[in-house]
C-alpha cells in the first residue's frame, strides 16, 4: 500500500495520471453537478407544481370543515388557509353578471402567488396574499361585463365592496377550465356581510395546507380515512393529470441528460486508462525484471488506481457541487423560483459512479499490464497492445446497471444504454469498413501525391483509426443529441402545447343554435372550430351489474362515478387522440371508445359492456378501444366516445375549443350577448400558466444539456490526445527523412478530414436514430427529420479534428525531431 502511494505520487509527478485524473474528475463532476442540479430542480418542480393547487394539500367539502380538521393541520405545524367558493350575481351601475366568488383568508395562496394589475391590460405584478377586507379583485372579463373599473364599487349580496385590482393570474384556477363564471376574489371576513352563505346555498369549502413533505404526508394519511361523503382531499399526485404529465416528462429529460453525462464519462475514463497502460508497459517490464510477481503488479496498480479513484471522485463531487451552485445562481432569474438545497444522494451517487467507472474501464487493461514480459526491456515491440475493445465492453457492462439506476426508469435507461452499445458496435464496423474501402491500395495508388500520403496514413492505422472514429462518433453523437436533437425534441414538446393552442371553450351550444354560432365565429374572423356533440350521462351498470360509487374504494374513482360523464359521439377518431388498444369502432356498431386512464381507474377492460343513463333513456355498449389523450393539448377531450348511432336523439349540446386572438374580444362579447345560454370559458390564463410551467422546465433542461455538452467536448479532446504520442513519433521520423512541414501537416490534415467527416456522419446517423427512438418510445412525440443534424454533424467532426490536426502539428513541429525520437526510444 505504501508503495502504491509512492507510485501514485511518482506517476502524478511524471504527469502520467493527469489525463486520467482529469477525465475522472470531469466525469464525476459532470455526473454530480447534473445530479445535484437535477435533484434541486426536481424538488423545485414538485414544490412548484403545488402552486397549481395553491398548496401541498387541499381539502374540499360541500359543507363547512369541522374545527377539528383545522386544528389537526395546525397541530402538525403546517401553514393553512381557508376559502369559500360559490356563484353569485355581482351588480355595478346598471350591469349585472354572474361571478364565481372565491372568498379567501389573508394567507391564501400557500403555494404560488396571485398576480394583479392596476387596470385591464396594465403590467401585472405579484400580489401579497389576497384582497384586503372591504375590497375585491376582479378578472378582466368581469370588469368589462360590469363596466366596473378599478376604484369603482360593486354590490355582492347585501355588501358593497371596492374594486381594488384586476386579477390577472390565479394559479389554482388554471386547474379547472370549467370555472364558468368569471372570478371575483374577496376577503373571507366580508362573507357574513353579504348574507349570501345561508343554509342550503351551494358553497364549496376549501382548506389548504402546506409545509414539510413528511408532515403533509402524515396529514394526508391521518385525514384520508376520516373523509366523509362530499369531502375530498387533493394532492399533486391525485389532482391535475396535465401537470403531472409535464413534471414526469421534465424528470425524464433531466434523467436523460444525467445518463448522457455518465456515458461521456465512461468514454473519457476508457481513453485515459488506455493511455496510462500504454505508457506503463515499459515500467512493468522493468519491474518484472526486478522480480515483481504478477499478483504483486496487480496489487500495486489496483491500489494505485483505487487511491486515484477515491481522490479524483471526491474532487469531482466537490467540483460538481460548486458547479451546480453556479448553475443555480446563473439560472435564478430564468427559473423565477428559489431552488431548494440538494440532497446527499447525488454526492454518494457521483462517488460511486466514479469508482465504478474507473474499475470497470480501467481494470481489464490494468490486468493486461501484469502480462507484460520482462523481455520488453530488451525489445519494446514484444508486448501486446492493450485491447481497447475489451476495456470498453467490460466498462460498459460494469456501469450499464448504474446508468439504469441513475435514470430511475427502465425504458429510458435501457433505450439510452442499448442505443449507445449498438452505436459503438455499428460505428466501429462502419468506420472500419469505410476506412478499408477508401484506402484500398489500388485506390491509394491512383490518388495524387498529397492525398495519397494522407490516405496511406489512414490505411496504415486502419484499426486504430476505426477505434478513434468510433469513439469520436460516440462523443459527437452525445453532443449532437444534446445540442441539435435536444432542440428538436424540445421543439416537438413545445408543439405539443403549441402557442396557438385554443384559449376559449364554448359550452352548451344547443343543436338549433349551432349553425348561427358557427356563422358568427366565421364572420368575426375567429375561424371555424370543430364542434363536438356532448351528452351528459351517468354510469349505471358495468357488464349488467349495477354500479355506484360504493363499488370503488378510490376517492377519484368514486368521484368519477358519482358525477355525470360528458359523452360524445363521433365517427372519426379526433386528431389529438390515438387508439392504444383494441380498434376504433365502426359507425354502425354499438361500441365505445374510452380513455385508457379512466378505464384503468374504473377497472374497465376491452369487451366490457357499459350502461349509461341519459335523462330518461339509457343505452348499453361494448368497450372496443382504449384511447390515449394529450392532456396538455388544450383541446376538447372526452373520456367516453360512442358512434353517432348510439347517442343520436338524446339530449345533446355542443362544445368547442378555439383560439381567440387578442383584439377580437368583441366577437366573444357579441357571442355571449346573442346566445345567453352559451357559456364562454376563457382558458387563456390557464394556457399561459401551463406554458409558463413548460418554459421553466425547458430552460432548466436546456441548462443541464449545455453543461453536459461541455463534458462531451472534453471527452472528444481526450480521445484526440490519446493518439498524440504515436503521431508525434511518426511525424518526427518523417521529418528525419526529409518531410517538409507541409508534408507532415498535409498528410495529417487529409487523415483528420476523412476521419472527422466519417465520425460526423456516423454521429448524425446515431443521433437521428436515438432521437427517433426516444421520441417514439419515451416521449411519445413526433420528431420530424432534421436537416440541421446532417449539416452540424459532419461540420462539427471536421472542425474538431481540424483544430486537433493544427494543435498536434504545432506540437510536432515545435519540438526538435531529435528530442521526440529520444523520448520515444
Amino acid at each position: 500500500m505504501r508503495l502504491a502511494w509512492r507510485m501514485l505520487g511518482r506517476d502524478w509527478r511524471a504527469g502520467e495520471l493527469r489525463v486520467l485524473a482529469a477525465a475522472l474528475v470531469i466525469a464525476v463532476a459532470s455526473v454530480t453537478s447534473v445530479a445535484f442540479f437535477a435533484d434541486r430542480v426536481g424538488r423545485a418542480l414538485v414544490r412548484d407544481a403545488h402552486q397549481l393547487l395553491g398548496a401541498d394539500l387541499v381539502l374540499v367539502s360541500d359543507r363547512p370543515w369541522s374545527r377539528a380538521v383545522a386544528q389537526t393541520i395546525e397541530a402538525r405545524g403546517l401553514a393553512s388557509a381557508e376559502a369559500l367558493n360559490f356563484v353569485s350575481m355581482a351588480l355595478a351601475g346598471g350591469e349585472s353578471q354572474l361571478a364565481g366568488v372565491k372568498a379567501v383568508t389573508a394567507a391564501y395562496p400557500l403555494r404560488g402567488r396571485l398576480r394583479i394589475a392596476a387596470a385591464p391590460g396594465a403590467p401585472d405584478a405579484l400580489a401579497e396574499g389576497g384582497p384586503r377586507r372591504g375590497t375585491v379583485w376582479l378578472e378582466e372579463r368581469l370588469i368589462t361585463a360590469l363596466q366596473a373599473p378599478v376604484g369603482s364599487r360593486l354590490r355582492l349580496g347585501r355588501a358593497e365592496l371596492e374594486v381594488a385590482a384586476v386579477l390577472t393570474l390565479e394559479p389554482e384556477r388554471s386547474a379547472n377550465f370549467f370555472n364558468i363564471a368569471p372570478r371575483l376574489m374577496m376577503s373571507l371576513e366580508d362573507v357574513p356581510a353579504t348574507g349570501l352563505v345561508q343554509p342550503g346555498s351551494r358553497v364549496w369549502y376549501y382548506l389548504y395546507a402546506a409545509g414539510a413533505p413528511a408532515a403533509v404526508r402524515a396529514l394526508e394519511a391521518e385525514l384520508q380515512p376520516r373523509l366523509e361523503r362530499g369531502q375530498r382531499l387533493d394532492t399533486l399526485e391525485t389532482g391535475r393529470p396535465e401537470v403531472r404529465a409535464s413534471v414526469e416528462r421534465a424528470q425524464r429529460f433531466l434523467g436523460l441528460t444525467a445518463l448522457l453525462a455518465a456515458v461521456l464519462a465512461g468514454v473519457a475514463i476508457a481513453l485515459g486508462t488506455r493511455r496510462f497502460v500504454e505508457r506503463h508497459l515499459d515500467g512493468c517490464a522493468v519491474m518484472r525484471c526486478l522480480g515483481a510477481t504478477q499478483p504483486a503488479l496487480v496489487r500495486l496498480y489496483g491500489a494505485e488506481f483505487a487511491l486515484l479513484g477515491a481522490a479524483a471522485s471526491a474532487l469531482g463531487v466537490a467540483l460538481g457541487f460548486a458547479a451546480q451552485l453556479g448553475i443555480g445562481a446563473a439560472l435564478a432569474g430564468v427559473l423565477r423560483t428559489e431552488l431548494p438545497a440538494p440532497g446527499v444522494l447525488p454526492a454518494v451517487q457521483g462517488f460511486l459512479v466514479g469508482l465504478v467507472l474507473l474499475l470497470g474501464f480501467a481494470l481489464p487493461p490494468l490486468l493486461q499490464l501484469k502480462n507484460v514480459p520482462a523481455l520488453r526491456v530488451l525489445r519494446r515491440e514484444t508486448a501486446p497492445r492493450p485491447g481497447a475493445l475489451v476495456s470498453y465492453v467490460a466498462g460498459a457492462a460494469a456501469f450499464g446497471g448504474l446508468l439504469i439506476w441513475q435514470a430511475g426508469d427502465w425504458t429510458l435507461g435501457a433505450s439510452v444504454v442499448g442505443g449507445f452499445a449498438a452505436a459503438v458496435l455499428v460505428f466501429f464496423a462502419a468506420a472500419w469498413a469505410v476506412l478499408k474501402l477508401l484506402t484500398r491500395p489500388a485506390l491509394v495508388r491512383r490518388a495524387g501525391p498529397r492525398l495519397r500520403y494522407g490516405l496511406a496514413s489512414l490505411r496504415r492505422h486502419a484499426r486504430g483509426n476505426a477505434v478513434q472514429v468510433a469513439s469520436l462518433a460516440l462523443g459527437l453523437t452525445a453532443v449532437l443529441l444534446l445540442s441539435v436533437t435536444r432542440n428538436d425534441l424540445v421543439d416537438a414538446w413545445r408543439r405539443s402545447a403549441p402557442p396557438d393552442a385554443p384559449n376559449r371553450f364554448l359550452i352548451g351550444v344547443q343543436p338549433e343554435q349551432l349553425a348561427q354560432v358557427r356563422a358568427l365565429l366565421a364572420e368575426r374572423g375567429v375561424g371555424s372550430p370543430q364542434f363536438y356533440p356532448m351528452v351528459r350521462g351517468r354510469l349505471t351498470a358495468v357488464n349488467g351489474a349495477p354500479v355506484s360509487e360504493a363499488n370503488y374504494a378510490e376517492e377519484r374513482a368514486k368521484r368519477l362515478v358519482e358525477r355525470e360523464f360528458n359523452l360524445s359521439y363521433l365517427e372519426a377518431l379526433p386528431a389529438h387522440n390515438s387508439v392504444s388498444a383494441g380498434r376504433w369502432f365502426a359507425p354502425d356498431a354499438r361500441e365505445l371508445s374510452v380513455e385508457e386512464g379512466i378505464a384503468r381507474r374504473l377497472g374497465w377492460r376491452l369487451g366490457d359492456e357499459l350502461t349509461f343513463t341519459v335523462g330518461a333513456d339509457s343505452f348499453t355498449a361494448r368497450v372496443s378501444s382504449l384511447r390515449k389523450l394529450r392532456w396538455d393539448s388544450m383541446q376538447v377531450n372526452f373520456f367516453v366516445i360512442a358512434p353517432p348511432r348510439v347517442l343520436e336523439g338524446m339530449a345533446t349540446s355542443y362544445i368547442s375549443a378555439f383560439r381567440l386572438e387578442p383584439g377580437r374580444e368583441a366577437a366573444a362579447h357579441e357571442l355571449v350577448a346573442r346566445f345567453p345560454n352559451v357559456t364562454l370559458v376563457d382558458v387563456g390564463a390557464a394556457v399561459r400558466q401551463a406554458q409558463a410551467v413548460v418554459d421553466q422546465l425547458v430552460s432548466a433542461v436546456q441548462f443541464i444539456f449545455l453543461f453536459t455538452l461541455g463534458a462531451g467536448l472534453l471527452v472528444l479532446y481526450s480521445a484526440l490526445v490519446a493518439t498524440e504520442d504515436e503521431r508525434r513519433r511518426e511525424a518526427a521520423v518523417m521529418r528525419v527523412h526529409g518531410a517538409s512541414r507541409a508534408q507532415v501537416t498535409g498528410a495529417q490534415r487529409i487523415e483528420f478530414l476523412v476521419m472527422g467527416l466519417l465520425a460526423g456522419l456516423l454521429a448524425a446517423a446515431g443521433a437521428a436514430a436515438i432521437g427517433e427512438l426516444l421520441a417514439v418510445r419515451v416521449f411519445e412525440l413526433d420528431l420530424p427529420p432534421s436537416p440541421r443534424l446532417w449539416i452540424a454533424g459532419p461540420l462539427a467532426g471536421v472542425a474538431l479534428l481540424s483544430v486537433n490536426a493544427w494543435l498536434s502539428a504545432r506540437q510536432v513541429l515545435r519540438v526538435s525531431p531529435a528530442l521526440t525520437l529520444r523520448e520515444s526510444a
Partner: protein
Amino acid sequence: MNRHNHNVLSARGIGKTVKSGDSDLVILREIDLEVTPGEAVAVVGASGSGKSTLLAILAGLDTPTSGRVELEGADLFALDEDRRAALRGRSVGFVFQSFQLLPALTALENVMLPLELGGRADAEAAAREMLARVGLGERLQHYPRHLSGGEQQRVALARAFVTRPRLLFADEPTGSLDAESGGAIIRLLFEMNREYGTTLVLVTHDEELAARCQRVVRLAGGRIAA
C-alpha cells in the same frame, strides 16, 4: 553544387548548452569537425560525453547554441526547418540504435517512406530492390513487430540507403542487438557504404567497431580529446 574538393560535412565551433534547473549544463563546447567525401568517421566517447547530441546537430535534427554546420556546402542553420528537412531527404540517411521503424507500416512501406516523401514515382520498386539487397526480399509485407531485432535493423539500413545518400549517420547501430546480429549488421553497413560510396559518421562506444573506421574522434566532457 558541390565542388569535389569540398568537404561533405564541416562543423566549426559547435557548442550546446541546455538549461537544467537554475544552472546551465554545457554538453558540447567548441567542436570542430571536417568530414571528407567517402570517409568513415567514428565518434566515440563514454555515456554522457555528448556524442549523440553532436550527431543530432550535425544532421540538423537539433540546433546548436553556437557554431555553424555546413552540409554539402549549405549552412544548415541558415536554412529553415523545411529546407533542412528537404536537404536531409536528398543527401542524408539515418540508422538509429532503436531502429525507429514505424510500427504501423510494413517493412516495404517503411523503406518506401523517404522516397514517397521525396515524391519519387518509383518508390516501391526501389524499396523492393533495397530490401532484397539487405536479404529481406521475402519479408516485404511483414510488420516490424514480426521481425527480429537484426531484421528490423536491416530494414532500417535499407531505408537509410534507399535514397542513395551522400552521407549516412549511424547512432549506435548495434546497441540494441546481440553480438551475432550486430556483427552481421556492421558487415552489411560497411559493405553498402563502400558499394554506394557513402560518407559515414558513426557514433558508438564500441572501440572494435570504431577501429573499422578510417578516423576516430574521441569526445570527453563535451570536447574533442586528442
